[in-house]
């Protein structure tokens, strides 16, 4: 096999901070992420080498820098169907044979599709890394997408979407993108819709694969216990992947709508209401990214946050309440999620909105900012404790064009957060007036109590299963 021309694109960091052999440091402030190397093969595939000698395992994560936002109109979910079918047949193996061979070595294969990217992953004990590499390469580079497997997966996906209605939180999450984004590419998930799944063809899947699965559109993270000889095997496995240009469509900006509205998805037998409050969020490369993260932690991340204290601790209205965002290439969604018993829906929505609007109006305090900065500093080493989580973060940063210096400078950037920077970000990005509120609950118990919040549109949950 032709030896690859290899060059090191960047040796990102070389500080003495690997997981082994380090003396106790001077605390979180001295923590640095572990060293890794970046290499670009001649065919354009970027490889991140993240060695970890602490345990006998190896993991591979391949990010394809395309996700469900590139599904053609009418073919919503083809990204998810393509990812699901990767391991359902190759030139050499049938779907059952692939599962058998992977699990015989204690391994597996999974592919997760997000709006802007896809990550396929396998891991194994290091005794089995050769076999895992062979299978991983074959699944990703030589899938055959058999018609029979497409038909099987189509039936499973349709049944899966229908059964989603019986998992109230998941169902409300599935419905929310469409409510926020409508026909925008972020308005559907990789699961697709019943209509799009029914019309999907093998050619659709093959076209999606041909168009987006390419070395120049991919980054491979190699983590674990391996040596230089095995690195060479990885390079040889992927250097023959034919290069090509990948032409992606532009994702439009957040759709324009205004005012606050409620979509009540009626399901009479539920004991609890699922409540999703959503609004326009931010792109990942927004300069105020860390200020927004700090604001969301103060607003609603676990113990001690404003929403947790007001809605759970003080009022006993819920077991869980969270504020969240999902930054993407273009503004992703931002929101608040909670749930409550049917008779408390109105109070919970009203008090959650009151807490949120007070937060936007008055901003955060010096004390809150000091606490959240300490929390972010303290969480940093734990977040990157395993090299697999570091790999995942590096892949996502790469997707959004953010350099690894983000992680190197993270602690200093946290130190620079101030009350004024957080409050400026809140004023700029946290919309108190233009909200979409989705409630999955019994109509009878909730419709009247929601009318004071905004115009209420009611739909039977079964409408979304067709």
């Amino acid at each position, binding site marked *: 096999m032709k030896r690859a021309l290899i060059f090191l694109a960047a040796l990102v960091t070389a500080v003495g901070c690997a997981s082994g052999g380090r003396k*106790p440091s001077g605390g979180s402030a001295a923590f640095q992420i572990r060293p890794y190397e970046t290499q670009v093969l001649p065919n354009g595939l970027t490889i991140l080498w993240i060695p970890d000698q602490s345990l006998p395992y190896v993991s591979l994560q391949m990010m394809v820098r395309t996700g469900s936002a590139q599904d053609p109109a009418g073919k919503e979910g083809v990204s998810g169907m393509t990812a699901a079918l990767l391991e359902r047949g190759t030139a050499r193996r049938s779907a059952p044979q692939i599962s058998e061979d992977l699990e015989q070595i*204690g391994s597996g294969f999974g592919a997760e599709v997000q709006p802007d990217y896809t990550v396929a992953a396998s*891991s194994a004990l290091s*005794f089995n890394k050769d076999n895992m590499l062979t299978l991983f390469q074959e699944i990703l580079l030589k899938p055959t997408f058999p018609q029979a497997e497409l038909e099987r997966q189509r*039936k499973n996906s349709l049944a899966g979407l229908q059964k989603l209605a*019986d998992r109230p939180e998941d169902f409300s999450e599935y419905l929310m993108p469409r409510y926020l984004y409508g026909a925008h590419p972020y308005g559907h998930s990789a699961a697709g819709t019943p209509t799009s799944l029914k019309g999907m063809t093998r050619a659709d899947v093959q076209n999606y694969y041909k168009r987006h699965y390419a070395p120049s559109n991919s980054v491979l993270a190699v983590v674990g216990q391996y040596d230089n000889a095995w690195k060479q095997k990885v390079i040889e496995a992927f250097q023959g992947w034919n290069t090509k240009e990948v032409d992606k469509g532009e994702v439009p900006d957040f759709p324009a709508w205004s005012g606050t509205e409620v979509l009540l998805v009626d399901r009479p037998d539920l004991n609890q209401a699922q409540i999703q409050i959503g609004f326009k969020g931010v792109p990942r490369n927004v300069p105020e990214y860390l200020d927004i993260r700090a604001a969301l932690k103060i607003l609603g991340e676990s*113990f001690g946050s404003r929403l947790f204290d007001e809605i759970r601790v003080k009022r006993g209205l819920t077991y869980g309440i969270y504020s969240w965002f999902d930054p993407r290439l273009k503004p992703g969604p931002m929101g608040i999620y909670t749930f409550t018993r049917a008779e408390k829906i109105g109070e919970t929505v009203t008090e959650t909105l009151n807490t949120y609007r007070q937060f936007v109006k008055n901003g955060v305090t010096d004390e809150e900012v000091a606490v959240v900065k*300490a929390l972010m500093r303290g969480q940093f080493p734990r977040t990157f404790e395993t090299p697999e989580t570091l790999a995942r973060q590096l892949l996502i940063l790469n997707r959004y064009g953010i350099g690894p210096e983000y992680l190197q400078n993270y602690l200093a950037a946290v130190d620079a957060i101030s009350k004024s920077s957080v409050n400026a970000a809140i004023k700029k990005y946290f919309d108190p007036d233009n909200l979409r509120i989705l409630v999955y609950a019994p109509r009878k118990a909730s419709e009247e109590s929601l009318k004071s919040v905004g115009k209420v549109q009611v739909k039977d949950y079964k409408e979304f299963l067709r």
Partner: protein
Amino acid sequence: MKFLIALLLAAPSVWASAPDALEKAIQFPVEKYSLPNGLTVLLHPDNSIPAVSVQTWFRVGSKDEARGRTGLAHFFEHMMFKGTKAFGKDTWGKFLNSKGADMNAFTSNDYTGYYINAPAEQLDLLLEIESDRMRNLLIDPKEVVSEREVVKEERRMRYEDQIDGGIRERMASLMYEKSPYSWLPIGSMADLNAASMDDLHAFYKQFYSPNNAVLVVAGSFDTARVKKAVEKYYGGLPRENITRPVVESDPPQKAMRTATISREAQAPTVAIGYRLPDISHADHYALDLLSIVLGQGNSSRLYKDLVYKKEIALSVSSYSWGQALGGQFVVYAGLKPKVDPQVVVKVIDDEMRKLRHTPISQKELDKARNVLLKDYVDGLKKVSGRARMIANYEIVHGDYTRIFSDLKKYQDVTPQDLTRVAMTYLTPSKRNIVIVLPKKGGGSK
């Protein structure tokens, strides 16, 4: 080094050599000792990141509740975040966040666990806070009123609006009639409403005592210093006499039991459960592996048959676990809409019969073992994961060293052992079958 043993050289992919090498490769240092007041302490030094994990686990769970007070152990777990005189309720939020810490807790049938993960320099403070709430908790009636509603919301979320949660609860009461395993840690709504201040105080006094606790400290620390701190903060806590409710045992199950849950659902679900012996029984090694053979992964027997070949289920799984008073082996199948659950019950029965009467190949056993070992190693990747594993093994088995020695036990399991345990425990008359049937007029159209 993170671990005592240096790099493991790549070995050929054959089972015979892997486990021995693996057992060496996963070794990590743990020191165990006890204080005179009965507190069990386990220290796992690891300097890989500047962080510590403090795990405080109590030997109390829902098995220690009396009938009429189900859910008390879990309800009390929530109250442990309400503060003491020295460390008020903001400790479990703003104060510990200001120290860079994350925290939470969980309650099972057999134990209740609390953890704080924090920067290493906060270790002294964490020990001070945890030792303080072990004995000095304030139980404010106003907080009890509010938190009771929070727990009830948790119950609605996990068990009333979730099909799988409803199955778990029904399975427990079907499988057992007298044992405290006949209810789940969440307890019943009526009992949650009935729990009184006296109940909470009495529960706290005896069960939250040092002689009923296991303290695990893992991470970046100096062992001698930590020992001094543990003595300083915990040494003065008084030992308590612990009186547990008398546990009633169920007689051996003689005949199959069935229950049907009729509810709005898009498709039926089938669950079949079997009682197993308690956690100390050596058959659990074979049962763990058998559960993988049967229903874990896309190449497992039930997946291949029900999901792939017959296409009548969307998901299947099987799990085996041991507990202090008895274990369980449970098979779940989430069916496709309109499938007759009795057809699925028969397919599962047929597969069980094969397990009992047809020898299992060495290759299939090796596959299950590889899956198990991979999961085992995955659980060891984080300091907090190792801390949790140490606490779990110490509480459940009374011996953390089984983390390492269990690998050999799994290695010793033979195909004949799998057949034997299937013959012993997974027989038709010992089945407990829970079926969820969609109500007519529901979503299953």
